[in-house]
């Protein structure tokens, strides 16, 4: 009972004084519940560490991500040899590299630290793209309803079947093609330049942007549809609120919870999309380190030097888990009734 009262944000004062409500906003309340969720806190902590690692990569990484020391190629530290005794037969020992060096003698640990930059950029740009497009699209569709809604949602249905991967491969073939370099001054030239300046991440963003917003748009539309029939929306109309005001002031704050949760839970998807594109060689330009590209490189020698695959894969897995845990925690915190459901 005492716990329940506390959960309601009330407290009793000694001597049976009347219950007084402490004022707590929705977000403060949610934060309190989030902090009590151990998995979410662990996830959140890992994400904070990752962000710090990505931002301060030059200070953490002992080497640069592209510095090649060819004589050190494929070297392995002692502790990994102890872990995989088979490697003792052929591997060169070099304890200068914490996780070993890759096939051109680049420090794996440094590359993993720098690799967090790509994954986290995707983890933050992905939601921004899909939130902006998806929420605007879905809100318009849900708010106006009827024929507008019907047409807009059918467009989404069609785009859902769009072969995004094929399209990105085509784009890459066109803009990154080595045989026919685009002439300077043309549109394709500026796109290629932009892509090069972004370290090859432009097409990853395009790939994510093409698909991710559709799910968001559907979710937003559904939420808007359920909220716009509520009586307080009608009440807002009777005081003369405009459509824009009703949308942003009255509907959006009511649906922001599920949107945030869905977006957080979608982040692992964006990260794995990037890793996948990089794995098949359509992602970032070498030598920019990306976990996907590192796994791809490591996979060539997975039987002889498993450390070159395992550690980037571990980094990827831990990051995705962290975002999943945080997302789950956020969902429980924002809507306690849904606790434990999927």
């Amino acid at each position, binding site marked *: 009972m005492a716990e329940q009262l506390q959960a309601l944000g009330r407290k009793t004062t000694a001597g049976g004084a009347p219950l007084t*409500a402490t*004022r707590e906003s*929705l977000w403060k309340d949610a934060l309190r519940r989030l902090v009590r969720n151990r998995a979410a806190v662990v996830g959140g902590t890992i994400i904070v560490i990752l962000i710090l690692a990505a931002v301060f990569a030059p200070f953490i990484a002992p080497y640069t991500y592209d510095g090649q020391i060819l004589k050190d190629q494929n070297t392995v530290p002692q502790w990994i040899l102890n872990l995989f005794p088979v490697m003792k037969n052929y591997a060169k020992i070099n304890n200068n590299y914490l996780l070993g060096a890759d096939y051109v003698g680049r420090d794996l640990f440094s590359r993993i630290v720098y690799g967090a930059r790509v994954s986290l950029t995707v983890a933050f740009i992905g939601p921004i793209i899909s939130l902006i497009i998806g929420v605007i699209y879905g809100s318009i569709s849900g708010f106006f309803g*009827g024929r507008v809604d019907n047409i807009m949602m059918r467009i989404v249905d069609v785009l859902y079947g769009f072969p995004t991967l094929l399209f990105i491969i085509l784009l890459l073939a066109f803009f990154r093609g080595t045989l026919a370099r685009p002439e300077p001054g043309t549109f394709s030239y500026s796109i290629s330049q932009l892509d090069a300046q972004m370290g090859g991440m432009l097409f990853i963003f395009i790939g994510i942007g093409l698909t991710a917003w559709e799910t968001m748009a559907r979710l937003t539309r559904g939420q808007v549809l359920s909220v716009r029939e*509520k*009586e*307080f929306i*009608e*009440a*807002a*109309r*009777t*005081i*003369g*609120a*405009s459509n824009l*005001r009703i949308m942003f*002031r*009255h509907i959006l*704050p*009511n649906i922001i919870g599920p949107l945030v949760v869905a977006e957080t839970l979608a982040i692992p998807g964006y990260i794995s999309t990037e890793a996948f594109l990089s794995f098949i060689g359509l992602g970032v330009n070498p030598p920019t380190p990306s976990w996907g590209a590192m796994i791809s490189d490591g996979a060539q020698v997975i039987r002889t030097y498993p450390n070159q695959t395992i550690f980037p894969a571990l980094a990827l897995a831990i990051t995705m888990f962290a975002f999943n845990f945080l997302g789950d925690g956020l969902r429980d915190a924002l809507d306690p009734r849904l606790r434990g459901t999927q």
Partner: protein
Amino acid sequence: MTDLLTVAGLETQFRTREGLVHAVNGVSFNLKEGETLGIVGESGCGKSVTVMSMLRLIPSPPGKVVAGQAIYQGKDLLKMSDEEIRHIRGAQISMVFQDPMTSFNPVLTIGRQLAEPLEIHNGLSLQQAYDRAVQMLEMVGIPRAKERLNDYPHQFSGGMRQRVMIAMALICSPQILIADEPTTALDVTIQAQIVELVKRLRDELGMAIIWITHDLGIIAGLADRVSVMYGGYIIEEALVKELYANPTHPYTLGLLNSLPRMDETDHRRLYSIDGLPPVLLEKPNYCPFAPRCAYAVEHCWHENPSLIPVGPGHTVACWVDPATGRER
């Protein structure tokens, strides 16, 4: 006193799967400055749709106002642009709803919502609006008004919320307050408080009120004039005293007879009007009340009566005089 609002021949229809529903069929009434008009009738008789049509709050589709006009300050509300009517809503004509539990946005503080009409219509900053909001809350009898601005709707009781709703409706000093069954969701003691509050505010602020209800008891103590609606028509209209002293339409008689009386000593079954409310899928060419009417004569089945005067300010739509039981 001059007419503030004149509604004439208002007709509203809804297109549904079952067919065209004639919710309001040519309703006309007027409202004088500072006057309180009661609109009574059973559920589904078109009371709410009438006022919603007036303010153009009928969702369209499926609803559509097909005819009529609503002249407010020389302009037809039904012909205004969306922008113009938006500046009328909440500023000049505002509404209080039936259910104070669902009429507030659960994620915004009371202060934010109270201040909203001022932000929209008077362009006040939030701070200025808050000062006015505190005044209004004190006026409707909310203790510790200043602190309560930061509370969320769920922290208020039903009666308190209805008070806040009224404060919100009155914050821009409107000419007309439309109260759509504002006491139906409240228990009886709170009902009385709310009615007293509205009476006091009316005397202080002098706005005109349209009070929609099916509770004849509330109307008796509050309204100056009463319109009785049935099946999308106004079937009787009179000054409040006249209506209670001299009800003329068989439906009004039935309604008044259905009221349980406090001073009754012998046990009797509560009176109820036979039959069911009309299905509004067709516009009747007979009196819509005829199927349930004890006084119905042949004529009632052939022609729908229009309002005819039977006394000073008293009009009724009925072919029969129930006092004599004969056709007029």
